[in-house]
């Protein structure tokens, strides 16, 4: 009887170890990867008012429009993603061409910008500027002025372009 009990316990002991092998687990490995992007709105430029040279004051054969104070300054609004950082650059000098003729004048642009619709507190811009951003409505205001020497100009109408680049940083 004692021998039978011993054998039985041995069999039980062996079989009891088997499940610990069969139930062994493979390890699970999880990785999480973030996918992201930042969407911005395309920038649009809206011309509110063209610069008016004919109404500007002339002094010493030079017409000057102060972009911070003159009501003859041109006005534009750049629209884009609210609060986004932007870079603004423009060409300081452009050629004005006589409408009916070949004469030209060199116009020296000066530009002031403000995130508020307030010309008097607008900041003068350098040729390239990186410290601006759209306001909470996605607007940035620009006033365009400058000066032109007309001492050697032939009477007539002159036309030219102003180029300003506004881009996200």
């Amino acid at each position, binding site marked *: *009887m004692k021998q*039978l*009990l011993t054998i*039985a316990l041995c*069999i*039980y002991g062996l*079989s*009891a170890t*088997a*499940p610990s*092998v*069969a139930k*062994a*687990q*493979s*390890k*699970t*490995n*999880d*990785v*999480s*990867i*973030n*996918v*992201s*992007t*930042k*969407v*911005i*709105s*395309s920038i649009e430029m809206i011309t509110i008012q063209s610069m008016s040279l004919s109404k500007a004051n002339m002094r010493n054969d030079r017409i000057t429009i102060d972009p911070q104070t003159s009501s003859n300054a041109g006005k534009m609004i750049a629209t884009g*993603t*609210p609060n*986004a950082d932007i870079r603004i650059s423009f060409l300081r000098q452009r050629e004005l061409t006589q409408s009916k003729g070949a004469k030209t004048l060199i116009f020296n642009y000066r530009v002031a910008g403000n995130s508020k619709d307030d010309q008097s507190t607008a900041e003068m811009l350098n040729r390239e500027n990186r410290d601006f951003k759209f306001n909470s409505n996605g607007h940035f205001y620009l006033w365009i002025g400058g000066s032109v020497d007309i001492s050697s100009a032939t009477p007539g109408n002159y036309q030219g372009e102003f180029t300003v680049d506004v881009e*996200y940083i």
Partner: protein
Amino acid sequence: MFDKSLFISAVLFFVCGWTGYAQQINFSQYHSYNLSVGELNSNNLDFGQVVSGSGQYSLDINSGKVISITGVQYLDVIVEVTFNDLYLNGNPANAGNSQKSIPFNLKAAYANNKGTPNIGQAKFINNISGNSFTVRFPILERQGRPPGPPPAPPTNAFDQSKVEETAYLYLFGSINVGNVDAGPYSSDITVTINYD
């Protein structure tokens, strides 16, 4: 005499019960086989700054996420991947809102060549549809012959480092930016890797 026969019956019941359970051994699922998963590059899939309505942007395999899978070279792994579109502010509540979500097209490949696998040897996973896929492959590709018999169960003498290899999983893809609201968009890819 009665007591003795009762005792034998009880013992046989125990033995039969445990023996039957012990036959359910899966040779590829031993806890002593380690499987480690790492991120070879810290990059997440960042498409950077994009303009609303500007269309498709892609990150190719060279710019994607690389996951290393190190384990027993002759065992298969099952890789389960789930992913979603990108949502404005990462908010899943924006799912289905075309103005606040960006479709994400996930692409994937793996390399399990002998030596140091590289992108040029990657095998592309072509059957990705919906928002998930599962792929199974050996840590080390079969070296020109069919798979061998199941491996012997590991013992104390088993040294995994002698049969260890690393495979690589590459995740990349593209987004299609429609006329969506401006802001940050994100979602997560979840990768689960187990021995088969």
